[in-house]
């Protein structure tokens, strides 16, 4: 089994691509507007949440990850996982120090 026999899908329709583009633009507008509001400590999670949504749309639709092989999906998950580990565990040191530095 040198290659996995996953079907090569028909290319996505123009509507899908243009629709994704418009959704990304809308989300960009939303993120700018949300940035100017003061949600206190929630500003950052909201901004990141919108960014993650946009990135997910680019990955799934523009990059065809939705129709890709299981290995590809594993690679995507792994990259996010280890990025979170690197940033999260480094930050956990600073957050839990209990003294200002």
């Amino acid at each position: 089994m040198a290659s996995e026999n996953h079907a090569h899908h028909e290319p996505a329709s123009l509507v899908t691509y243009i629709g994704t583009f418009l959704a990304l633009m809308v989300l960009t507008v939303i993120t700018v507007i949300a940035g100017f509001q003061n949600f206190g400590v929630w500003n950052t999670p909201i901004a990141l949440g919108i960014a993650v949504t946009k990135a997910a749309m680019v990955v799934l639709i523009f990059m065809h990850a939705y129709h890709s092989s299981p290995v590809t999906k594993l690679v995507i998950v792994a990259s996010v996982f280890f990025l979170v580990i690197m940033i999260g565990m480094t930050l956990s040191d600073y957050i839990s120090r209990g003294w200002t530095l």
Partner: protein
Amino acid sequence: MTSLGLQTKEIDHGHSHEVSEPVNYLNCDHSFKSWLLSLDHKRIGLMYLVTITLAFMLGGIMAGVVRLELVTPKGDVVSSDTYNKSFTSHGVVMLFFFLIPSIPAVLGNFVLPLMIGAKDVAFPRLNLLSFYIYLLGAIIAMTALLLGGVDTGWTFYTPYSSTYSNSYVTVMAIGLFITGFSSILTGLNFVVTVHRMRAPGLTWFRLPLFIWALYATSVVQLLGTPVIAISLALVGVERVLGVGIFDPRLGGDPVLFQHLFWFYSHPAVYIMILPSLGLISDVIATFSRKNVFGYHIIAFSSVAIAVFGFIVWAHHMFTTGLSPYAAMVFSMLTFSVAIPSGIKVFTWLATMWRGAISYETPMIYAIAFIGLFTIGGLTGLFLSTLGTDIHLHDTYFVVAHFHYIMVGGAILGYMAGIHFWWPKITGRMYSEFWGRLSAGIIFIGFNFTFFPQFILGYLGMPRRYHEYPEELQVLNVFSSAGATVLAVGYLMPLFYFAHSFFFGKKAGSNPYGATTLDWTETSSPPSPHNFEKTPVVTEEPYIFHGKEAAVVSH
């Protein structure tokens, strides 16, 4: 035609006899260009062999300077600056230019496609590019050394490396940045090759354990190396632009550098040891003529080590002022990463138990490996324990611990692999007498060099110091004497391998009676395209049906 259906060519030696020698990857084209621009993974592996052997010798000379200085308590052989540069270049050269590429770039490149029934790696041109990137990085690093060297230690801790050191840090950082891409490309090549180019019938759980180990190693190379590239780039930016990302005077945090540096450099040590762990499983199975015990567990343990290796890095930073809670978490995780390694040791022993063991040189190295790796691993536990680490950090205990793993483990594993696959690579056997003798000399020299260092560390001798209290001299002399013996042991293979290459007995395709595709389906040396027919795999590896009784004699 030979029995494997190989093409032959008539070689006109101009002598009276005509010898018909099969076409193999060595004799198919003798021109310089065919070697330097070769896309054949086997030739690329050999080119790496030459360069990393040179790197090893350079790193060894640096170690010689260090051990020579430490024969006497006073700093009387070289100045302290020169000493700092010596241990720094020893570390940099040995780690980045020898250990990290060693098994993957030499043995992995040569053996991986053969073991999985492929004609080459997935991206042969990237493979060649990866070799030249390594060369370019090595040349730039050499330039840094020739200009005057680096004195920061291989860990480049800030703010010394980023602000205060007057040595050639930026040049070295550029060299290492570039070399990192060689590692990344090799890892990328192997991951894709294993996923997409296995022979028909070769499912994941029929892969030889060496492939599992190389795959895990490649994943680590992909994930970790980019981070050290950025860390070193930031140090370079600081030095050149005079900004303060890691300088406390300018608002920066030196500990942040250490977090980013060790995020790679801890997994890097798994890059160095994982391939050996897989290779040793193959060697032990072959020379015990017995199926490995616990194949699935060993395969999963390689992956577990690769993954867990990424979440323990701050155990190098326990004395930096980490949050105690973070330190506790990292300490516990470090204990857990010892578990898969320990499991491997037990499976090797269980594999050998009641096997039909023969003691060829690869097996001698493998058995030595088990003992020395175990000692290295166990001593790591003292270092991951917060309380004892406060006392042992930055002492010779740490130096001894990692040399037991890196030399007693990784390098002995590499030697086992070179001796094991030498007949496949060259088509010749080497002298078992000299092979075993040099293995013994290496083993003795190694233990004399590094065991005293455990005691020195326990007694408090700091690392990276060119002088020490007089009462520690005896142990240091033992250590330096051992280093001389070790050097002799390392030099011997150059001679008997050279002799073997030209005059050794012809090996035949499978002199050791191994069961994996690289031995059973290819000639020694292999033909340029590896396989005349794409092999089909129908059973697990390491099945020695009735071959246990076969006695290999030569």
